[in-house]
């Protein structure tokens, strides 16, 4: 063990680039595995909610189903429509997956456990998630199909609308925490009250709006009009097959995990334990740690699936109304409330 730590420190001193690359792999590889098993969890959970069993044929209890899906998609033919714009058609899926993975660079999993501890972390994440929309738009345009095009346009309008509400919700968080650094935001939620010290309580409207906007940003049900299989076949990825389709799929699920993890980090205290520190002194697993981060992320991931199994698809004008006329005014008012609470040092959270 000591030799390993020594080797790691030697690597950091002499081959910094190699050390950073190892860190990136250590984040991306488990993330990809999570994405694969998130699809399995989705099919199982929605199955049980609909009183079915879900996938149970490949491997014990169907555990190898995601692997089988991946292998199938990898060996399928990549069909490129003859009138499609070939280069953009193939770049589009990568533009969806790339930003979804790049955003994890500033994500702190635990105290001090972060790839790039930058000051403007929150802004960086907001910028990266807003870049992801290009994949959908370009896919819709490059496919040269009217269904795909309609899906791309719908998605562009929807994502731009909900980004504003999402951004305002994040403004509330950074006012409350007084920092753009994600680690600082978590540390600002630390306190004797355990889970009642986290930001979900003083920022409750922003918390709800952030998560719902996140669902809309990732084009998930009930906001999945960009796919809308009942009206525009499968929306922007109707012409995709094989690996490019799989990359779209990976990007969508990676984005879902990112939004879940960010909700956990910004509003639910990240790696902090829900129990007050004085209660769990020396008790294993109950103190602060990475496992709380993962548990909270899994909870919000479950909410994504629960929403999909529960709600019918929103009508397009209702989506726009919700974003512009309901969410944005609420966030603006609540930013004012949070600002006043911070200025007057409201006891319990901001004193």
């Amino acid at each position, binding site marked *: 063990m000591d030799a390993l730590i020594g080797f790691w420190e030697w690597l950091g001193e002499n081959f910094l680039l190699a050390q950073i690359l190892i860190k990136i792999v250590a984040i991306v590889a488990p993330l990809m595995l999570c994405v694969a098993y998130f699809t399995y969890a989705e099919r199982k959970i929605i199955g049980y909610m609909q009183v079915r069993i879900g996938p149970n044929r490949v491997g014990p209890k169907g555990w190898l189903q995601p692997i089988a899906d991946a292998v199938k998609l990898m060996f399928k033919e990549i069909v490129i429509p003859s009138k499609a714009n070939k280069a953009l058609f193939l770049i589009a899926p990568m533009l969806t997956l790339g930003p979804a993975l790049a955003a994890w660079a500033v994500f702190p999993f635990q105290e001090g456990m972060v790839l790039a501890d930058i*000051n*403007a972390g929150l*802004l960086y994440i907001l*910028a990266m998630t807003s870049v992801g*929309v290009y994949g959908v738009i*370009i896919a819709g345009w490059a496919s040269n199909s009217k269904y795909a095009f309609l899906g791309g346009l719908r998605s562009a309008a929807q994502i731009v609308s909900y*980004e504003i509400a999402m951004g305002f919700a994040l403004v509330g968080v950074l006012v409350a925490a007084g920092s753009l650094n994600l680690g600082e935001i978590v540390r600002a939620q630390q306190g004797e009250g355990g889970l009642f010290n986290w930001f979900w309580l003083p920022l409750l409207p922003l918390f709800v709006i952030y998560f719902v906007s996140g669902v809309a940003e990732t084009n998930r049900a009930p906001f999945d009009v960009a796919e809308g299989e009942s009206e525009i076949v499968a929306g922007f990825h109707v012409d995709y097959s094989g690996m490019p389709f799989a990359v779209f799929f990976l990007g969508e699920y990676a984005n879902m995990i990112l939004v879940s993890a960010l909700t956990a980090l910004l509003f639910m205290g990240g790696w902090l334990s829900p129990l007050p520190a004085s209660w769990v002194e020396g008790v294993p697993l109950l103190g602060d740690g990475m496992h709380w981060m993962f548990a909270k992320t899994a909870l919000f991931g479950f909410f994504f699936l629960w929403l999909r199994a529960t709600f019918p698809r929103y009508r397009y004008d*209702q989506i726009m*109304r919700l974003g512009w006329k309901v969410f944005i005014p609420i966030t603006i008012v609540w930013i004012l409330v949070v600002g006043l609470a911070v200025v007057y040092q409201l006891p319990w959270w901001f004193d």
Partner: protein
Amino acid sequence: MTFELIVFYLFSAILVASATMVITRRNPVHSALFLVLAFFSCAAIWMLAEAEFLAIVLVLVYVGAVMVLFLFVVMMLDIDVATMKAGFIRYLPVGLLVTLAMLIEIFLVVGADNFGLDKFPSPAPAAADYNNTESLGNVLYTAYMYQFELAAVILLVAIIAAIGLTLRKRSGTEVRQQDPSRQVKVKKGPDRVRLVKMEAQD
């Protein structure tokens, strides 16, 4: 050549190349996408100048919002390239002349005579704990408060003017309209569903 210089020239080359592509591509969607690439390389150069807040905001605002809407509009346009190219040769000399004049003006104003390294030596690199966002906020909300609020008011006026220009009231019975706020107010009980008791038929 230091590493920084290599990075600078790399991104500058990408920036200039993509900017050239913006004006030379025939397909307007390609032009818009090259403009996105230009913004990205510009953000990278700003990042190199330790202006990370501005760099990220450039990506967030221009790439993430403005260009998306731009692309949205450009994709739906049906631009006839032939009409746009018509008279290219005829206007070329005038265009070149204007370009040359602008180029000379730019060089006179921001050239090495006024902004050379001897006039503005490169600042010492900031410490690791230097917070770009914080220092920008400190200046923006104290020394430049007046200008900042003026800009905000101008933007607000622009928003209201744009809405005022496009807002049109369509009335009359022949226009079918949906009012989502009335639709979502519908109650489950009396407004939407009426339960009727019926005798079983055989």
